[in-house]
């Protein structure tokens, strides 16, 4: 076994509502949507209108600045709605699904016999290309670039995150094809990052053409950004591509079956879910079909596509985010608390030692969405560093983002971080600073200025 990289900094937030390790077979898929808002800095160009008939793999919208990047529908059916927000911003393209999915045929092919250009064309045409993201900036990769490496994290350490070994254990063939495809794109083996305690029966250990790296430690050890920082950090001008492990299997199926088969398994978890479990579904699936009959109705709830640290709030009739493999449901926290800052707080969780929670590290908590305080200026120092396992000064980087100083942002390491890597800083912050938003704004400014 190769070297284990041990990370000490970080924080595991133990929440109630962990999913049982059983996979619920797919129910009927009624509708499905793609949301341009899932992609950073994307200006979409709509290619369909309401009522159009589409097959799985047909284009819904494209990237206006890179028209070759296409976003295709995972189901066949008719366009049910095109939802827009303020200033006609495109929010959702909803497809009403046929009883049985009709696929557009892209033709089966052996990845190893295709040229790099042919592979790229196929990925772009079928609409799986957006699954390949680049660092820096955490955006969709540019097909004209060649990355210095491809990284895939095969585990997720976020609260209530899915166990990919369970989800993918019978998809070795598709995973292998996906890996081979990524190898062709970067011209070398793919870096596959595993947890230090990977069981020897794991499907990931059977894969070829991968360089295995092992990580141990609390969240964010499973974040691919943190892993890259420790394996092969990104310097100015370099690019690294990353793909979610479940999306690797979808890429594999494109070649093995010749179609855009975006079925995936997600985890439905959180304290407000009656029976937390894994569910087979499809990319962009309707939340309602997934949660139907499985939510407690006791309190107001927040449904999150993704995990509690980085996910997106969705409505009960919203849709699963493009990159999300998890739905978390937690209680809303819109209540006042009398002298809440002074009470002992046995049911509260804190990374600080100001609450009794540090005395019982194994206890699980039901946490709601209350801020537990008000926004303040940066006061406490050294707090972010304890949960941020990178050789970067987080507060200085954030201050550079706030002052829009792009030279300083570059010097302080903005190329190496994505907002998800700093999500824990936002969680622990005494001053309730919107860390991810600030970093996101910084990244977008950087993209605009350096273009």
């Amino acid at each position, binding site marked *: 076994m190769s070297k284990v990289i041990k990370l000490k900094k970080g924080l595991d937030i133990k929440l109630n509502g962990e999913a049982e390790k059983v996979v619920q077979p797919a129910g009927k898929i009624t509708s499905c949507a793609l949301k341009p808002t899932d992609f950073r800095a994307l200006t979409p160009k709509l290619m369909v209108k309401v009522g159009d008939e589409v097959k799985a793999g047909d284009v819904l919208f494209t990237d206006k600045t890179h028209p070759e990047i296409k976003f295709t529908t995972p189901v066949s059916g008719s366009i049910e709605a095109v939802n827009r927000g303020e200033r006609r911003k495109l929010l959702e393209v909803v497809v009403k699904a046929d009883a049985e999915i009709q696929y557009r045929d892209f033709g089966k092919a052996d990845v190893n016999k295709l040229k790099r250009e042919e592979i790229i064309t196929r990925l772009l045409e079928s609409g799986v290309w957006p699954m390949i993201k680049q660092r820096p900036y955490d955006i969709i990769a540019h097909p004209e670039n060649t990355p210095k490496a491809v990284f895939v994290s095969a585990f997720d350490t976020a609260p209530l995150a899915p166990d990919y070994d369970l989800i993918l254990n019978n998809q070795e063939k598709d995973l292998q094809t996906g890996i081979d495809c990524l190898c062709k794109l970067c011209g070398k083996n793919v870096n596959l990052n595993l947890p230090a305690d990977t069981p020897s029966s794991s499907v990931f250990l059977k894969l070829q053409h991968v360089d295995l790296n092992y990580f141990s430690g609390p969240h964010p050890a499973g974040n691919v950004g943190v892993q890259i920082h420790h394996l092969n*950090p990104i310097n100015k001008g370099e690019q690294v591509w990353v793909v979610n492990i479940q999306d690797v299997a979808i890429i594999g199926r494109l070649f093995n079956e010749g179609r855009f088969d975006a079925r995936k398994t997600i985890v439905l978890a959180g304290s407000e879910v009656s029976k937390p479990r894994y569910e087979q579904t499809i990319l962009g699936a309707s939340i309602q079909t997934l949660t139907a009959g499985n939510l407690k109705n006791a309190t107001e709830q927040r449904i999150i596509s993704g995990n509690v640290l980085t996910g997106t709030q969705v409505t009960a009739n919203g849709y699963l985010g493009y990159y999300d493999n998890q739905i978390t449901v937690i209680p809303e926290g819109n209540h*006042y608390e009398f002298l809440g800052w002074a009470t002992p707080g046995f049911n509260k969780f804190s990374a*600080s030692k100001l609450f009794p929670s540090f005395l019982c590290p194994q206890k699980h908590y039901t946490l709601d969405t209350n*801020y537990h305080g*008000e926004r*303040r200026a940066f006061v406490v120092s050294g707090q972010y560093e304890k949960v941020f396992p990178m050789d970067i*000064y987080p507060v200085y980087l954030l201050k550079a983002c706030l002052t829009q100083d792009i030279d300083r942002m570059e010097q302080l390491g903005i190329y190496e971080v994505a907002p998800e890597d700093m999500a824990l800083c936002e*969680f*622990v912050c005494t001053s309730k600073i919107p*860390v991810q938003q600030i970093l996101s704004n910084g990244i977008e400014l950087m993209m605009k200025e350096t273009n």
Partner: protein
Amino acid sequence: MNFLRNYLDKQKPKFEKGGKLEKLHSVFTGFESFLFVPNTTTSGGAHIRDAVDLKRTMIIVVLALVPALLFGIYNVGYQHFNAIGALAETSFWQLFFYGLWKVLPMIIVSYVVGLGIEFAVAQIKGHEINEGFLVSGLLIPMIMPVEAPLWMIALSTAFAVIIGKEIFGGTGMNIWNPALLARAFFFFSYPSMISGDKVWIASDTADAISQATPLAQMALGQPLTYSTADMFWGFIPGSIGETSVFCILLGALLLLLTNVASWRIMLSVFVGGFLMALIFQPISGVAAYQQLCMGGFAFGAVFMATDPVTSSQTNTGKYIYGLLIGAMAVIIRCINPGYPEGMMLAILLMNTFAPLIDWCVVQSNIKRRLKRAKAVARL
């Protein structure tokens, strides 16, 4: 507590924009969020947040100050009755209430002036009232001599809050520790009221009671008339809160157990001070460990140097910052006879240099990143 909540909800519209009491909006929200943690929920970013907030953090610091404050109050009575030779016939509670009678007005003045300015500025600038002054307001009387006139305390507090904090943007933005700035203002404006032998013992008559502090004895090269035990437990004249090293260490224990104060800073201040005191031992004639028990050294190390806003932000920087404070305080004490107490100036000086220390530390991180990029480019 529902009736209180309902009452607040009913009163709230009056304080909102267009309401009758709009001018007191900041004061209302300040009190409201003091009584009730607000019902705001997360939007964007992390959906759950740590239970900690600045109120809880600050209240821990206030709690940590309590032992030193209580002892300080007692010691005011003790020193007074000891000086007039009536200690034997005075009970513990008489000593304590005498001290309370002297110290309480100082605390009230400091809080009323400071919070008054804080409330007014929050209202003018339209932001929320910050918790920072809860600590500063208690620190200010604790680092004053008991005979300091109340109006001077009021003026020093106003100076510290306005010039030291609000013009920079309030809590979190200030360069110098507000409480020390208040003391520095006092020190340079009314030097006769904060140095010499006549201000450390409370007096009820027009005649001041004259008694030298250990620091003054050291500065004048006189032999110390106080035992190390007295200096450790705190039975010496000095600023109200600074005398008992034991009570300060109790506070330090709470701050360290809860991680509210940086152990890096605290430790390195003591190490820096001890090493420098060893070097100066032949000149000062005072043992190094005695130096650490004298005057405001321990109080400054535990409560002032560790102020997260004005100290170094980086972990490496914290060691350098602390070492230099400790060393500088002893140097000022031993070399400059004009300032028997070096701690205040040492901390203010290092507050000024903390951003520079951090700049150097961060710069080395930047250089590391550049070097890495160059190494790759060469391949």
